C-alpha cells in the first residue's frame, strides 16, 4: 500500500463529490486506468465519474500521462476531463 493524494477536477469532481482525498493505493494497482476502475466500484458517484474513460485524462505528479502509464510511488494523481482553457 502506498499513500497517494488523488485530485479531481470539473465534472469528475462534481460526480465524486470531493476535490481531493488521500488514498492507499493497493499494490496490485499500477496504472491510473486500473486505479480508476478500482475507484469506480466505491459508489455511484465514482462509477459515474469513470464510466467513460475516453472522457478522462490524468496527471501523475502534475505531469500529463496516458491512462495506461505504469506508476511507481506517485505522491499525487489527478483525474480530469480534457482541458478547455484559452
Amino acid at each position: 500500500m502506498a499513500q497517494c493524494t488523488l485530485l479531481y477536477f470539473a465534472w469528475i469532481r462534481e460526480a465524486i463529490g470531493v476535490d481531493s482525498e488521500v488514498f492507499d493505493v493497493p499494490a496490485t494497482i499500477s496504472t491510473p486506468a486500473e486505479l480508476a476502475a478500482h475507484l469506480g466500484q466505491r459508489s455511484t458517484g465514482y462509477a459515474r465519474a469513470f464510466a467513460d474513460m475516453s472522457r478522462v485524462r490524468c496527471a501523475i505528479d502534475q505531469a500529463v500521462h496516458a491512462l495506461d502509464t505504469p506508476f511507481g510511488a506517485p505522491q499525487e494523481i489527478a483525474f480530469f476531463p480534457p482541458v478547455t482553457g484559452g
Partner: protein
Amino acid sequence: MIRVLVTPDDFEAGAEGRALAEEGAGAVASFIGIVRGGDGLSAMTLEHYPGMTEAALTKMAQEAAARWSLIAVTLIHRIGCLTPGSQIVFVGTSAPHRQDALSATAYLIDRLKTDAPFWKQEQFNDGRTHWVDARESDDAAAARWG
C-alpha cells in the same frame, strides 16, 4: 523574460503590451480572449489545477522561446467567475522581428487550448450549468505546430 500569471483579477492589456517592449524588441504581438456572450449565458467559471497550471504555462512559453527568436513572453489566464465581455486570457510576445512575435503568439494561443489544465463551466440565465467540452478542432490547431 517570461511572465506567467494565473489570477482572478482583470489585466490591463496596454500596460502588458508596453512591458513587453524591452530593449531589442522590434515588434510586440498580442491576443486577448474574451468571454463570449449570447444564448442566455450569464457567466463562465474557470477552474484550474494549482501548481500544475503555472508550470504548464511556463513550459509552453519556454518552448515558444526555443522555437522563435523572442525577447519576452507574457501569459495571463484568469480563473473564477467571469461575465460575458470579460477578458479571460492575454498572450503577448515581443521579438526583434514581427514574424517571430506573430507566429509565437499564434502558437501559444493554440497550445493554451489543449495543454493547460483549465476547465470552463458555463452558467445560463435559466439556471442551467454546462461544462464546456474540448473540441477536436482545438486539437487539430495545436497539432499543426508539430
